[in-house]
């Protein structure tokens, strides 16, 4: 079988997942050796390097958005899954309740405390803090050390505010500590933690205004907490991301001209900014067979920004656009959206997920070598 190379148009066509009124076509990737006779689809790192593109759309500490173009869904999904479930963060794991006379029960309060995201110095979180192993009965020494446990405490008592104006109804003014917030949690450094978590590197809630409980005069919450490192597969509180997701790049092909009032209706079928309206130019109208003949000056629909489309398929529901538009998605164009909870920077979470996948593969390679030995 002679080696053949598919044409550019053919390759472009293969990238598209068809989105029709009732069904979705060409979902699976076909870029494997043996799928197309005579074509070579063997893994080639140089080809992969040439085909791979990354474009950033936004890069803030708490939200990163970028396009990863030229990878298979299995790889893109591995990164996404690792970001959610395998990147370690620090979260409250144990709560020691000394006194809790609030209306919120101990176990519910503990759960709420566990879900509060914390931030702290990167150097300390990455390199200094190590995994904590749950102590067993056999352990002679309990394994709580400065390098695996972070101690926090929360000690609030609600009291009457003597200075409150007479007739005041607002409980936050009438009482002290009527609301317990995440900012009331106090970090207590132990041992070498002072080197890593002091000043602006101190361990503190990312969002200081998270409401933990409401109290009334006489009620007390007095507890201390231990934080440990963990991963999202164990409990969602350890996940470094609020969301980490991707979607495929939408494509909109206008096959035949959509003009006048139809064009305006067409634009309304999409989110704002996706479809633009332009006047048919003299050149357009002069072109034979373009469908624009004799329509100079009328409005025509053009695709302005397909990325903003939500692929609602609304335009496929109307008969006037039948056979005039084709929707699709690019199979290898992933638009990632990563929202960090604050302990990591969003872009660092993605980098860490790549490193994690590599490390996983490296370890297993060693394991396979050991298996054969």
């Amino acid at each position, binding site marked *: 079988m002679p080696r053949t190379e598919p044409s550019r148009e053919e390759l472009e066509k293969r990238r598209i997942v068809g989105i029709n009124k009732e069904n979705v076509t060409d979902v699976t990737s076909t870029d494997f050796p043996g799928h197309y006779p005579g074509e070579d689809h*063997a893994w080639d790192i140089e080809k992969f390097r040439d085909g*791979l593109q990354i474009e950033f759309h936004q890069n803030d500490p708490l939200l990163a958005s970028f396009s990863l173009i030229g990878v298979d869904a299995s790889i893109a999904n591995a990164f996404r*899954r690792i970001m959610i479930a395998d990147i370690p963060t620090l979260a409250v794991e144990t709560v020691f309740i000394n006194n809790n006379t609030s209306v919120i029960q101990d176990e519910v309060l503990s759960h709420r405390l566990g879900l509060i995201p914390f931030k702290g110095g990167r150097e300390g979180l990455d390199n200094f803090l190590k995994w904590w192993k749950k102590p067993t009965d056999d352990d002679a020494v309990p394994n709580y050390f400065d390098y695996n446990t972070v101690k926090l405490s929360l000690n609030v008592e609600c009291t009457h505010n003597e200075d409150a104006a007479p007739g005041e109804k607002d409980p936050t003014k009438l009482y002290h500590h009527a609301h317990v917030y995440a900012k009331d949690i106090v970090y207590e450094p132990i041992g070498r933690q002072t080197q890593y978590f002091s000043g602006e590197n101190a361990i503190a809630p990312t969002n200081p205004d998270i409401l933990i409980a409401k109290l009334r005069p006489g009620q007390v919450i007095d507890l201390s907490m231990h934080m440990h490192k963990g991963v999202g597969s164990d409990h969602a509180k350890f996940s470094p991301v609020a969301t980490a997701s991707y979607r495929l790049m939408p494509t909109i092909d206008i096959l035949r001209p959509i003009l006048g009032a139809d064009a305006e209706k067409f634009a309304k079928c999409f989110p704002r900014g996706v479809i633009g309206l332009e006047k048919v130019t003299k050149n357009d109208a002069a072109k034979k067979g373009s469908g624009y003949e004799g329509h100079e000056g009328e409005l025509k629909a053009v695709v302005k920004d397909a990325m903003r489309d939500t692929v609602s398929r609304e335009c496929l529901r109307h008969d006037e656009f039948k056979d005039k538009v084709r929707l699709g998605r690019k199979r290898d164009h992933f638009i990632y959206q990563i929202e960090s909870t604050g302990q990591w920077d969003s872009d660092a979470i993605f980098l860490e997920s790549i490193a994690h996948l*590599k490390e996983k*593969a490296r370890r*297993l390679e060693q394991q396979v070598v050991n298996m054969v030995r």
Partner: protein
Amino acid sequence: MARSKAKQDASQSAGEDDIVMQEPPASHQPDLDETDASMAEGEGEEGVEGEFEDEFEEEEPQRVKLLPGSTPTAASFEFLNEGHTLGNALRYVIMKNPDVEFCAYAIPHPSEPKMNVRIQIWEAAGTTAIEALEKGLKDIQDLCDVVTDKFLVARKDFKE
């Protein structure tokens, strides 16, 4: 008719020249602690269960094992504590290998932390399923390096 006879043969005398296809689902296998008769043809592919400790790496129990019934060109592997994350990515890169006739992964039961990978090599390729698995794991590492490089460049460009 012929099929039912073959089946009978297999169950009676483990089939002289029939290929025996009577493995129960992998997850029901007892732990492989002694050499399995059906793997005698693969050189040095005994089930290793924690016999070899890693000298240069931190001690990690053996998490990959060859399932019984495997031959050099057609093998099933069991990965402990791995899931779809690695399974699907690994399946993809192994399928990209032209020597591979078939590759698939499965998680036999969701409540067991096991992931199985099946690899079949073209007989004419002159390589083994284990080599294909190793190549797949290497390719993932190369891929990760490329993505990291491009990501860092893209992030730097975006900042400017």
